[in-house]
């Protein structure tokens, strides 16, 4: 974990309001685990006041890439950046996916921009068999770059299976013989919650990456609790003990 001023190395406009931005930091690039995030101060003003957390999307040499949708003040400020301008980044942060478990098939599930941690994850799962399931409202929301064996679900049927990505995964599990599977997911809470039920029913281990509002991202504000199911303690901090959790260990706030 470091705080560093790094140069913006790439800004790609992917589609409609989705951008991929790269910045150079050999320290972050060399130490990031899939599912971890960076916390970015998008400008030098108090508007916005907080940093904005973004999943690490891809690592290319010394460059760390994030993918984001232009949404509010933070992301609007971010796309104002010019190439080689400096940005203030803290990372890598949080606990990522556990890729060292005993499993053979990695089932990657991304809903909408929940695809964000899947490319770096794909990279770090090189020795495993990977099947990737992407869901979105329309085909526009499907971002298969860097991914392997991609299966698509869209709400409006504009690409792939018409329905939710969890339904698609369920159909796949029914139809195919999957050897020692483990699910790695990221997406909206509603999706993760339904996915948790499917994983429980089929006894498949499943890790999910959560989002909450974060003031600090490093465990000093206590602002990002997620309720636990295991009774050991009431809450975990998403920024420090997560953002990746065993899907069965957390209660999804809807």
């Amino acid at each position, binding site marked *: 974990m470091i705080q560093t001023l790094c140069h913006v190395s790439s800004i790609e406009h992917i589609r409609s309001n989705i951008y991929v931005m790269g910045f150079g930091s050999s320290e972050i690039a060399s130490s990031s685990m899939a599912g971890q995030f960076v916390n970015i101060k998008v400008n030098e003003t108090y*508007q916005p*006041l907080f940093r904005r957390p973004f999943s690490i999307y891809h690592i290319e040499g010394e460059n760390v890439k994030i993918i984001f949708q232009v949404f509010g003040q933070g992301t609007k400020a971010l796309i104002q950046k010019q190439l080689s301008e400096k940005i203030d980044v803290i990372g890598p942060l949080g606990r990522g996916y556990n890729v060292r478990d005993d499993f053979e098939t990695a089932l990657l599930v991304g809903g909408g921009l929940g695809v964000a941690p899947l490319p770096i994850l794909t990279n770090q799962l090189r020795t495993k068999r990977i099947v990737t399931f992407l869901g979105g409202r329309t085909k526009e929301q499907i971002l298969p770059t860097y991914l392997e064996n991609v299966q698509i679900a869209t709400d409006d049927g504009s690409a792939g299976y018409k329905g939710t990505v969890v339904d698609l995964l369920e159909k796949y599990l029914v139809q195919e013989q999957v050897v020692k599977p483990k699910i790695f997911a990221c997406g909206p809470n509603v999706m993760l919650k339904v996915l948790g039920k499917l994983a429980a029913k089929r006894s498949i281990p499943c890790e999910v990456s959560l989002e909450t509002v974060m003031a600090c991202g490093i465990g000093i504000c*206590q602002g990002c609790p997620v*309720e636990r199911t295991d009774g050991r303690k009431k809450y975990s901090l998403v920024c420090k003990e997560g953002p990746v959790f065993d899907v069965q260990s957390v209660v999804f706030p809807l």
Partner: protein
Amino acid sequence: MINTEVTIGSLKLKNPVLTASGTFGYGDEVKELVDVTRLGGIITKSLSLKPRDGNSPNRIVETASGLLNSIGLANIGVHAFIKEKLPYLRNLETTIIVNIAASTIEEYCDVLSILETETGIDGYEINVSCPNVKEGGLTFGTNCAMTEEITRRLRLLTKKTLILKLTPNVTRIAEFARAVERAGADGVSVVNTFIGMAIDIRTRKPRLSTITGGLSGPAIKPLALAKVYEVAQAVKIPVIGIGGIMTWEDAIEFLLAGATAIQVGTANFITPSAGVKIAEGIQRFCEEANVRDVRELVGAMRSER
């Protein structure tokens, strides 16, 4: 050589910059990002007798230049603190002030008594001003007699530096400062957060689970500075200024208004080394303005017309 040392009670701080309770964890979370030995000191997250889970989410809202929080004093409790955190803190070359919160006078006394048996604690800051808990918190902090009584009782239990942390959510904060001075406190911390609120107009729900919370950050700086000035006019014990301090310039304003030391809160969330940078900035300012002792700045505002 510029003197940056300041004194609060029997406590000497190597510089006037402390980290504010609840905004720097227990000091160990940030060790990769900050050289904490360059701070004047660390004030730890409020401790209660028993661990507290804190309030249910959502606990944090970003507002215009501000942070609205309702953490609800989530903390590991005094015993776990002694076991898990104090060993690390004890060995740091910086001042450690432990902040205590409680729901009854007895609980304040109990926590302090337990801490008294330990080494490595340099002083106490008593939080009678948390807006985010049902019992204790503001019920104490807005009651002058109660605040005085808590101070008096705790004073009997310790010879270490005892600081009371006041709430700004009162009509005349100077009365509270005078009461705690009278009761034997070594210093007053001014201020805790201002009561605030935000509503999600889409869901029509309050953005915080507790409806109201406490506002901190740059938005409150002018308000906090006015409170510090009011208190500094009223008491002789050192005032520790808090509220929206993000830069060394902000810190100097608080010194000029009468603060002997300052605390950095919300700024840590954006830059965990904010306190160190502010300490450096104060030093540099003194060099450039030919101020040989930082204490010359305390209360040095020129208010003549």
